[in-house]
């Protein structure tokens, strides 16, 4: 699957800045490209910007980043919620997923939980179980804790 994954868009004309969308209030804002975390100008919530790569078992209450969460083949997430800018799943995920960007699901991936995303690409052979909201009408929304 060669689908471009660009949840964090570079703003035109300024290479040092990128535009992100807040995971909680969904309002866009410009931040420094090199920033690792920022505070949302609109809702004052802390936002992590870096990409996360999961290579082994991770049990966490929540995983939240404006970047891309990649679950490698041996990665296994057990979490109440995953809020992210995009997701690539080659391993296992158990929990609610709300992504602002595309979710790419590899052929050996396993997802158990509800998924909300603008687009989804699933490879044949993946195991999915849950309620899915995919497409233009499905607005990724912050899951209330």
């Amino acid at each position, binding site marked *: 699957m060669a689908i471009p994954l660009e949840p964090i868009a570079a703003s035109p004309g300024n290479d040092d800045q990128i535009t992100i969308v807040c995971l909680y209030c969904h309002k866009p804002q410009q931040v420094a490209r090199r920033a690792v975390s920022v505070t949302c100008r609109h809702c004052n919530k802390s936002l992590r910007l870096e990409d996360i790569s999961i290579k082994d078992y991770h049990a966490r209450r929540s995983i939240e980043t404006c970047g891309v969460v990649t679950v490698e083949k041996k990665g296994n997430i057990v979490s109440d919620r995953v809020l992210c800018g995009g997701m690539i799943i080659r391993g296992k995920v158990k929990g609610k997923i709300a992504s602002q960007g595309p979710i790419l699901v590899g052929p050996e991936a396993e997802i158990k939980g509800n998924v909300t995303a603008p687009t989804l690409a699933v490879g044949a052979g*993946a195991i999915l*179980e849950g309620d899915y909201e*995919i497409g233009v009408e499905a607005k990724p929304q912050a899951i209330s804790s």
Partner: protein
Amino acid sequence: MADSSPQEFATILGPDANFKGELFFDKAMRVHGRVEGKITTQGRLHVAKEAKISADVEAGSIVIEGEIKGNLTASDKVELKNSAKFEGDLRAGRLVVEEGAAFNGHVSVGPEAVKAGAPRPQVQVSVSKPGIAAAAPQPARVG
């Protein structure tokens, strides 16, 4: 439109056709028109871009380019092309979703989902105490 030739499909429902009821076929069918009701086959169902289906579908494999509302069960594979719009529950052995497809509903995909075969498990209430179990709803007594 898919690159499959018309010869592949023994049955084709044209774009000006409107079908209501239960539809059975053996091999493969391509739908360009509208279908309302139920579709059952062990073969292949292809829902073309301009097609609109409001039906429960049980098939071997299903390829969707158009719009479909209803519950889908495929023993083999469901393919949602980038123009597909699907609303309902989906149960299939394999699922392929192209980026751009829109869908909303419960998904069960994998070998286990097909083995189960039956619709989503409903919540069952079992009462273990015999006294309570025997207490069937009684008609209201007045006076």
